[in-house]
């Protein structure tokens, strides 16, 4: 696997964790939420969504429960576990460091 997909995968995980940090969401709502927050700039590659969710669930970062939606349909809701919270915090800190470093470099290069 090349580093580009690694980076993307890591980023996707972080975005998913952040999205379900405040409230439990099902997969479809997640796609919308990310799209909405980013002002349409981020569109989750739908083919990777569920594998990523299931992987995070298996790692104990997300917890999934079946529940009812507003329209009365049954859906699988994901929310962040305590372990996931810790992971999210550390990844966000890393990301901020990294993005700051990158902007410094890019800014300096100008």
């Amino acid at each position, binding site marked *: 696997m090349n580093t580009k997909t690694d980076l993307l995968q890591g980023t996707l995980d972080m975005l998913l964790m952040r999205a379900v940090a405040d409230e439990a969401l*099902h*997969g*479809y709502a997640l796609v919308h939420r990310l799209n909405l927050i980013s002002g349409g700039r981020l569109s989750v590659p*739908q*083919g*990777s969504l*569920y*594998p*990523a969710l*299931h*992987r995070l*669930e*298996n790692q104990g970062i997300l917890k999934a429960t*079946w529940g009812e*939606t507003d*329209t009365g*349909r*049954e*859906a*699988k809701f994901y929310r962040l576990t305590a372990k996931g919270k810790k992971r999210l915090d550390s990844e966000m800190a890393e990301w901020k460091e990294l993005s700051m470093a990158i902007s410094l470099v890019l800014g300096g290069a100008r």
Partner: protein
Amino acid sequence: VSWIQRLFGRESLERDMNREMRFHLDAAVADHVRAGLSRDEAVRRARMDFGGPEQMKEATRDARGTRWVEDFMSDARFAFRGMGRSPVFAVAAILTIAIGVGANTAVWSIMDALMKRVLPVDKPEELHALRRDGLQEGIYYTSYPLMQTMQRDLGPLAELAAVGSIGRAYATIADRPEPAQTLAVSGNFFGLLGVHAAAGRLFGPADDANVGGSPVVVISDRYWESRFGRSPSAVGRTIRINNFPVTIVGVAEPGFGGLNVSSPVDVFAPLTMHHALRLRGNARNQNGRDEEPWMPQREISWLTLITRVPASDAPRVAAIADRAFKADQEIALAQNDSASRAYAMRERIVLDPIPRGFSALRESFRDPLRALLGGVALILLITCANLAGLVLARGEARGHEMAIRVSLGARSGRLARQVATESLTLALVGGAVGLVLAQWIVQALLKLASSGTSAVPLDAGLNAPVLLFALGVTVLAGSIVGLAPAIRVRSFDLYAAFKSGGRVAGGHRLPLGRLLVAAQIALALILVTSAGVFARTLSNLIEVDAGYDRESVVTARIDLRAAGYTPDQLPAANRRLYQAVRAVSGSQSASLALFGLGPGGRRTSGFATAGRTIAPGQNLAQENYVTPGYFRTVGIRLVRGREFTDDDMVGRPRVAVVSEGFAKHFFGTADAIGKRMGYGVGDSTGDSGIEVVGVARDARNGGLKAPSPRIVYFALAQAPTEFVESVDVRVAGRPEPVINGLRNALSQFDARVPVREIVTVGAYIERGLSRERMVARLAGSFGILALILSAIGLYGVISYSVARRTNEMGVRLALGASPRGVSWLVMRDSLALVAVGLAVGLALWFPVLGLTRTLVYNVSPHDPKLLAASLGALILVGLVAGLVPAFRAARIDPIEAIRGD
């Protein structure tokens, strides 16, 4: 949800996943419809956004982390279905692997029990035995007073425990005496080892207090089981050991049978009971007083001392023990001259670690077992190569199936894994069957290796290391078998597979398969030549001129001591015994001897002759006591002088018959008649009270392997305290009736006398060749197996290639090639393969056969004639294997062959 739950809750996980994805699609469709799209368009858009649902499901399944297990299970299920479709192949493959794994596991478990297993005691790595080093290998004996001195000097640094042999022992539990392995041990023996009681008590210091003061025994768990059925009432029972009553006070913990793993102890007795329990007579101590208890005697060295110290302390303990030993020797040797004293003082005490105990079998079977393990490993390799060839050929036949799978999207790596899994599944099933087989093979091997009529008493059961070994061998076999086909699948050429309508035309003539066959031939050459070498060794040994008759002499091994005879009763008893035996119908002559021909006890003494100096340590010879007629009966020819007669009795001049080797060694000439000799060290004149009256041919009286020892024979009638152990009868016709007659005669003579053996001398002697016979038989069967397997492998490859080249052959024939020429083409193919295999085999042959050097007798491992014969046999295999395919090639109908494509 844990990994295990994910693995076993697969179905509900699948259901959930489907529900989840359906919800997603439905929600997306609903949104699109709300946004104003038509329903069809909405579904289309939702699906497009979502991507291929199956790929996503696959990726989601991968995320579970249980994927490889699921794949393995499904591949294994597929493999089982495949076995069901071709049951003959499956059964053949499973059996082949089962035999390979079974044989390897069996040999390994025996090696494990004999070579590797440590004693079931506390910290076995701390156990040491005191050995007297410097003169001969492995003298472990000291006297009891010396042990006490050593213990006093050692103080708290190290505790010594002692074991001493009781010699031959018979236990009377019901009515008749029966052999029971009995060992005398010091009171601290069990405590030092850390062995506990399974029932009752073990020995303590009180049992060491007075000679004869503690008439109790401890039995082993094994004996408790076999002789008392683990009855609790065994403890407290009184039995007789060599006619002396003793009380069983305890049972040692399971698995413990003394320090010698190859002759487990049945009965442990306190050292203080040694004298009471021992069968007296037939042992001679030059310095000590045999008729009195040995324990207080400084002159009798009979105890093996063991101690428990960390390895770092061993040299210090040895040094202290050595000082005590040297001081003891100074006193013992005070009377001797300086030369023999200097010689004796070369001895010193060393500490040998004995974590695995002692074993006579270990030494003699180490090399044979290694050779066996090598042999079974080669067989396993050959069978694997053979199976791999079979699987490969099946793989070729399944080319169409593979082509379809590849075009349906199966990745080649996944396919290769599936093919490998099929082989592994076969191997695992075969391995399981092999474990069952191994149990039988172990018993058969122990029986084959035994020099007696019952199996070697070795506890070679299944345990963790053995199971691990079996699993390792199985996986190895599966991998070897699966590797070649898996490689083949990885480089699968879809285009070629379809182009030829399912018959794979690419991959020129199965090169992997050819490689495997050549390898089989190479390994077979090794096995066939070693079979020849071992067969020659056995026949050389059997044909050795032992110096006596083997086929027309029947021998019985008895023990008069166990029946309670006292020395003063012996002359009369011997006379009655002789007459009873002589009267057996079919006997030409009969005789009695202290020691019989073949494996068994011997007495070695030091002798001196008047007027000749023999170097210290060179004055030893075996002695035997025989009745008149002995030499005639067993067929040892007298080269000079006379046999013993009835006149050679007490009160007459003492006479001796010596072997040629004895005469040359002690007198410097074969003509020793009239020379005088006596007991003594080599350079003193001794008592010279014995006159040599005859010289007998050298005889290998201990067995066929060892060269003839120097022997001196004395007249039994002149040594009335010897208890004869061997009765020999010369037979005119078939031995069987005489064997029965002899048994009756002995029973009538005295039913209390235990009879250990009644066989022909030949049969008895050849039991001493059990090792060589075992190796020769097994190597022979390995050789034959290797020939058959390589013939089958070769035949498979050649006939496969003929089938594939039918078209080409047809064209050749159509263009005017003669059928004979086409046949030759096939034969040449077969022989070329053999030639390649033999070339590789020859390169291996020299170093590998060199390893058998310690196991051969009178034949070189690299004997050119044996090599030539083996090469011939394998070339013959090439011819035979090529014959049928060649014949088939010659009968190809050109029209059919060309039209067929």
